[in-house]
C-alpha cells in the first residue's frame, strides 16, 4: 500500500488487502482453470465433447460461497469506514473554504492560510464549505475524501494524523477548467510547534517592510489567492479577462444589462474584487468570480493595483 | 438479380400493439414518478413552505379541472364501447366531447398560470425570488409538473384529432380499433397523473 499517515489507514488498508486477496485468488484460479481447459480439451486433443448434466448442488455452492465472501467484504469495508463518520467531540476545528479553484483554511482564531497546518496525534475536524460548485476534499495519505457541497448542512470530515510531514490535498470532484490545479498541502507538525504557529501574532497582519516593492507584494497576493487560475498575465483570456495591459484603459462592461464604458482604475479593480457581478466585462459571464470581501483587505488591493499597473511597463 | 417486390404479408397484432402502448405508459409513469420523488424529497425538507405554497393555489380551479378530466376519461372509455358495438356516430360524439373537455382543461390552466405569472410568480420571477427557498421549490415543481402534464394533454388532443379522422374515414371501426383503444389508454394515463397532482398541489396544506 501507499504511504499512510492517519488513524484510518489501518482499517482501510486491511479492507483493501482482504478484498484484493480474494479477488486475486479467484482471478488467478479461474484463469488457470480456463487455460488448463483450453490445453486439455482443445479440438485436437479432445475431438468429441462429452455432455455434462447440470447440477443444482453445484449452482447452490457457487452462489453461497461468494455470498459469504462478499458479506465479509461488506463487513470489513464497514468496519474500516465507520470511524470516519464519527468525529470526536474534542479536537481542533478548521473550516475549509473551496472555490474555483483553490482551497483556503480558516482556524478558530481567525487565522487563514492556503495550506492546511495541523498538529500530530490530535483529532482535527474540518468543516467543508463549498462556495460555488461541488468540490471534494481528498487526502490520499489519510484515506479520507468528502465532497464539498454548496448549501449542505453538517458537511464535514475529520482525521487524526499519525506522522509529521507534508502530504498532498487534492480536489477530487470535477469542478471545471482548473480542477487539476486545485491542490494544496497538509502540513502535520509536532503539537507544540503547531500551537506556536497557531498563536503567532505576526502572522495575522500583513507584514510590510518599508522598502518592499508593492508590485511584488501584489504579485504574491495574486498567486496565493488563486487569481491566476482565471486571469492570465500574458494577454490570453482564460475564464476571466487577462490582467495584462488593461490598467488605465477604458473598457466596455455590462452593468444591469446596460452596456457602458468605464475606466479601469483603482476604483474599478476594487469593485471588481468586492462585487464582481456589478460590472460584467464584455464577453464574460456573471457568477463565475465570487466576491473576495473579507478575504482581501483594502490594503492588499492597493498592492494588487500596483502590480496591475506594473504590467503595463 | 430477379425482380423483387415489397414484402407482401402485413403483420397485424392488436394485442401486441396494445402491449406496446402499455409499455410506453410505464415509461411515462416512471418519468412522472421521478417528479413525484422530487416532490416527496423537497416536501420532506421544507414542510412549512410547501404547506403555505399549497394555500396559494386555487382549490376551485383545481377541483374543476379534476372533474373535467375524470369526465373526459369516462367519455373516451365510452367511445371505445361504442366502437366495439359498431356505433360510429356515438363513438364520434364521445370523442368530440373528450376533445372539448381537454380544451376546457387547457383554458383553465392558462387562466390559472396567467394570473400567477402576472404577479411575478414564475421561475426566476421577481416576486417568487423574494420568497424563501422552499417556496421557490414548490412553485418550481408546480410549474414543471403541471407544465409537463399540460404538454401530455396537448399530445393527447393531437392523437384524438387523428383518431377522430380515422373513425370518420372508417379506418378505425368495429373490428380494428387499436388506435382508439391505445389513445384511450394514453388519455387515462394523463388522468392518472392528475389524480395525484391534484391533492399534492391543491389540497394538502
Amino acid at each position, binding site marked *: 500500500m501507499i504511504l499512510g499517515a492517519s488513524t484510518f489507514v489501518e482499517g482501510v488498508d486491511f479492507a483493501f488487502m482482504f478484498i484484493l486477496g480474494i479477488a486475486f485468488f479467484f482471478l488467478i484460479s479461474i484463469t488457470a482453470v480456463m487455460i488448463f481447459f483450453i490445453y486439455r480439451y482443445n479440438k485436437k486433443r479432445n475431438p468429441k465433447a462429452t455432455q455434462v448434466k447440470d447440477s443444482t448442488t453445484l449452482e447452490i455452492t457457487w452462489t453461497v460461497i461468494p455470498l459469504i465472501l462478499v458479506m465479509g467484504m461488506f463487513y470489513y469495508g464497514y468496519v474500516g469506514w465507520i470511524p470516519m463518520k464519527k468525529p470526536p467531540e474534542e479536537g481542533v476545528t478548521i473550516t475549509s473554504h473551496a472555490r474555483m479553484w483553490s482551497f483556503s483554511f480558516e482556524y478558530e482564531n481567525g487565522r487563514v492560510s492556503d495550506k492546511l497546518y495541523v498538529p500530530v496525534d490530535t483529532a482535527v475536524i474540518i468543516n467543508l464549505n463549498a462556495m460555488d460548485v461541488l468540490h471534494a476534499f481528498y487526502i490520499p495519505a489519510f484515506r479520507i475524501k468528502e465532497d464539498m457541497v454548496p448549501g449542505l448542512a*453538517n458537511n464535514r470530515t475529520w482525521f487524526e494524523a499519525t506522522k509529521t510531514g507534508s502530504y498532498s490535498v487534492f480536489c477530487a470532484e470535477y469542478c471545471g477548467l482548473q480542477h487539476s490545479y486545485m491542490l494544496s498541502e497538509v502540513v502535520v507538525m509536532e503539537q507544540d510547534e503547531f500551537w506556536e504557529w497557531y498563536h503567532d501574532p505576526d502572522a495575522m497582519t500583513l507584514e510590510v517592510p518599508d522598502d518592499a516593492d508593492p508590485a511584488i507584494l501584489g504579485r504574491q497576493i495574486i498567486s496565493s489567492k488563486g487569481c491566476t487560475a482565471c486571469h492570465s498575465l500574458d494577454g490570453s483570456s482564460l475564464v476571466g479577462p487577462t490582467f495584462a495591459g488593461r490598467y488605465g484603459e477604458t473598457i466596455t462592461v455590462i452593468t444591469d444589462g446596460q452596456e457602458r464604458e468605464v475606466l479601469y482604475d483603482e476604483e474599478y479593480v476594487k469593485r471588481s474584487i468586492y462585487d464582481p457581478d456589478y460590472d460584467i466585462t464584455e464577453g464574460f459571464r456573471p457568477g463565475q468570480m465570487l466576491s473576495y470581501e473579507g478575504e482581501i483587505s483594502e490594503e492588499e488591493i492597493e498592492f494588487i493595483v500596483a502590480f496591475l499597473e506594473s504590467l503595463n511597463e | 438479380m430477379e425482380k423483387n417486390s415489397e414484402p407482401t404479408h402485413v403483420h*397485424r*397484432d*392488436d*394485442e*401486441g400493439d*396494445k*402491449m406496446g402502448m*402499455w*409499455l410506453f405508459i*410505464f415509461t411515462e*409513469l*416512471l418519468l412522472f*414518478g421521478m417528479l*413525484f*420523488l422530487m416532490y*416527496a*424529497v423537497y416536501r*420532506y*425538507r421544507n414542510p412549512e413552505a410547501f404547506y403555505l405554497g399549497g394555500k396559494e393555489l386555487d*382549490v376551485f380551479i383545481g*377541483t374543476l379541472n*379534476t*372533474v373535467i378530466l*375524470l*369526465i373526459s*376519461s*369516462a367519455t*373516451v*372509455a*365510452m367511445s371505445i*364501447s361504442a366502437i*366495439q*358495438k359498431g356505433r360510429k356516430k356515438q363513438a364520434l360524439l364521445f370523442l368530440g366531447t373528450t376533445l372539448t373537455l381537454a380544451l376546457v382543461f387547457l383554458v383553465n390552466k392558462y387562466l390559472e398560470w396567467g394570473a400567477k405569472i402576472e404577479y411575478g410568480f414564475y421561475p426566476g420571477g421577481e416576486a417568487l425570488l423574494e420568497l424563501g427557498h422552499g417556496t421557490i421549490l414548490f412553485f418550481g415543481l408546480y410549474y414543471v409538473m403541471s407544465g409537463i402534464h399540460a404538454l401530455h394533454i396537448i399530445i393527447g388532443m393531437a392523437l384524438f384529432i387523428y383518431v377522430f379522422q380515422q373513425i370518420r374515414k372508417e379506418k378505425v371501426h368495429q*373490428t380494428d380499433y387499436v388506435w382508439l383503444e391505445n389513445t*384511450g*389508454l394514453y388519455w*387515462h394515463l394523463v*388522468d*392518472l397523473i392528475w*389524480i*395525484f397532482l*391534484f*391533492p399534492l398541489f391543491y*389540497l*394538502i*396544506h
Partner: protein
Amino acid sequence: MSQEKHHIMSYTTHLIVLGVLLILTAVSVAVTSLELGALSTLVAMLIAGVKAAIVLVWFMHLKFDNKLYTIFTVFVLVLFLLVLYVTFFDYSYR
C-alpha cells in the same frame, strides 16, 4: 394472430365508475379542507390511490384484459415504490 374476444363495458358501468370517482374527489376536497395536518395528507393520498386503482381496473380494462398487464403494472408500481423507499434512506437520516 387470433383476434381474441373482447369484453364490452356497458355505458351504465362507465357512468357508475365515473360517479364513484367524482364522489371520491368530493370527499378528498372536503376532508383536506378540515386541516387535519399529517392525517389529511394520508387520507388524500389514500383516496388518490383508490381513484387511480379504479381508473386502472375499469377504464383501462385491467379487469378484463390479459392478466399479464396487471402483473406488469403491479411490478412497475412496486419498483417505483422501492426506489422511493431506498431514496429516503438518505433523506430520512441526513
